[in-house]
């Protein structure tokens, strides 16, 4: 079933890709085959592969139970949130929070998880900012 769904998604993706390719605004002068041909070939390959999924699906994979899915969902949300607040809060604070959360959800007790978060954050800051000199996000406090 999962493979069949993948097949349907793949077919719609192929269609979407081909339609978007057809809508590419070509410039006044172009090469022999233009900027659309290769995307068409790609969408054909995606469509063909998707048809294979539809007609000869692999055995069903083991999808996790709902609570595990929710767990992953929350982690994804935290990751997005992290990307969002990083430039606002600065590197050290946001990273401590995100790393602490992940560590907690992976089975560390709450208090040690805070330590893991802060430790990770400071450790990375030392290596990347102070040793390698990369510019990490600067928050209101400059770190």
């Amino acid at each position, binding site marked *: 079933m*999962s493979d069949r769904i*993948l097949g349907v998604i793949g077919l719609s993706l192929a269609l979407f890709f081909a339609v978007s390719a057809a809508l590419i605004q070509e410039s006044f002068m172009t090469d022999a085959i233009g*900027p659309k041909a290769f995307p068409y070939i790609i969408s054909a390959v995606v469509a063909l592969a998707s048809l294979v999924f539809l007609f000869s699906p692999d055995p069903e994979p083991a999808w996790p139970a709902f609570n595990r899915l929710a*767990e992953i969902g929350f982690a994804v949300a935290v990751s997005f949130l992290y990307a969002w607040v990083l430039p606002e809060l600065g590197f050290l604070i946001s990273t401590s929070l995100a790393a602490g959360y992940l560590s907690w959800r992976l089975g560390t007790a709450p208090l040690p998880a805070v330590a893991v978060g802060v430790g990770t954050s400071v450790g990375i800051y030392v290596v990347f900012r102070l040793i390698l000199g990369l510019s990490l996000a600067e928050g209101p406090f400059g770190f």
Partner: protein
Amino acid sequence: MEILSSLGDGFAVALTWQNLALALLGCLLGTIMGALPGLGPSNGVAILIPLAFTLGLGATPSLILLTSVYYGAMYGGRISSILLNIPGDEPAMMTCLDGYPMAQQGRAGEALALSGVASFVGAFFATWGLVLLAPQLVKVALLFGPAEYFALFTLAFATLGGVASSNQAKSAFAAALGLGLAMIGVDQQTGVPRFTFGEVHLYDGIDFLVAIVGLFALSEVFVFLEHRETDPSKATEGKMTIGRIYPTWSMLKSCIPTMGRTTVLGFIAGVLPGAGASLGSFISYSVEKRLVDKEGTFGKGDPRGVAAPETGNNAAAGGALVPMLALGVPGSGTTAVLLAVLLALNITPGPLLFQNNPDVVWGLIAALFIGNVMLLALNIPMVGLFTRVLLVPPRILMPVVAMISFVGIYGISGSSFDLMVMVGFGVLGWVLRKLDVPLVPIILGVLLGNEMESNLRRALSISNGDWFALVDSWLSLTLWAIAIVGFVLPIFLGHAVRRKMKSEQEEMIGD
């Protein structure tokens, strides 16, 4: 003999205490950057350019520092591939396929030491290739016109099919997905934006680093979250056994033919501009799998599956210097950065470089030898140290990995948008893993997509739209033939083919 005396002069230039210290520093930093997901050889070199200039180094010392970083990163990428199933950089992706299973079987130390030796062999002989064959090799690069490049890229995808997954359709799907992602951005040929949907962030396309870190590193974190508590094998992973640190001689010996073949393959892939180290390791792995994987142990922790891509990508790293030095055409992202360094030092690579700046060239080559020996000497004793990473429980290790991935991307691009795209890739990676869609072809597609398309379009423009131009030379015909055989035969003949190729191979060795 003239070459050897030039090389001797090169060593005279390179062997000063300052240069040796720089090489050591470069090797260490390079290894670390290679091992950290998100920082690869090209970023590593780019990050250290300001350091080279602020230290006020001259041309040769700067090059020694930066090439040591380059080779170091090529070594370092394998460490996280083997220990964490997360490639440290894109050429190390294939090392995951057998390296991580070896680590799971408690053979992490062996895998690390073996891959260290394999890296050394690849890089060492490739550097000799660079010394002895550079002028002739330029001619090899000149055999490849746009049609041949297109055939070569097709071959890479076609042969990858049977390697990364048992289901050819899923490999093809993944490859097409990667190619499709590569199409996003401003078209290189005509300058029109494609698939950007008016989003300015997408104009310069999706960085393959964002894709690779998302697909591999973040999805790994999600896998751990999924299996916490429920799956005993994952839960005990923190107490993974380390086993012996050094491989047995018989294991090394069994890998020697593999290393020999993949040195040649990787080196040639490196010499072709636009192909580079990633293609070197992909082709090395898939060809070796076709040739020697009689029992189907590749992908389940076969040492040869670790040796092949590591030899291949390090050989390619050496090979990629050939077109960069002799033609001024960078063969990979890293050599593009190195080329920029040379130009900044007022050295113009090109056909006259060997005559005009012999001290720089030979000093550089000597530095490659020195860096390579140093890396072997550094890496083998440190295997024990690296394997300790496995003793860190995942509940601490995984958050660290996730955060390093974020930092690697953010530190380079400074863009929250890239981070969000990366999280998107993480989710995609998790779903695709569930569905047994291999991730490697996606990265290959993102890496090679634009070059592949450009060469197709150039070939057809030259031929005035005649598609037969794609098969118009013996070289492209050969490449197409291999590509078709490589794609079709596994579907119909499966096991029988491998056995046949294996026996042919033995005949060849017998000759």
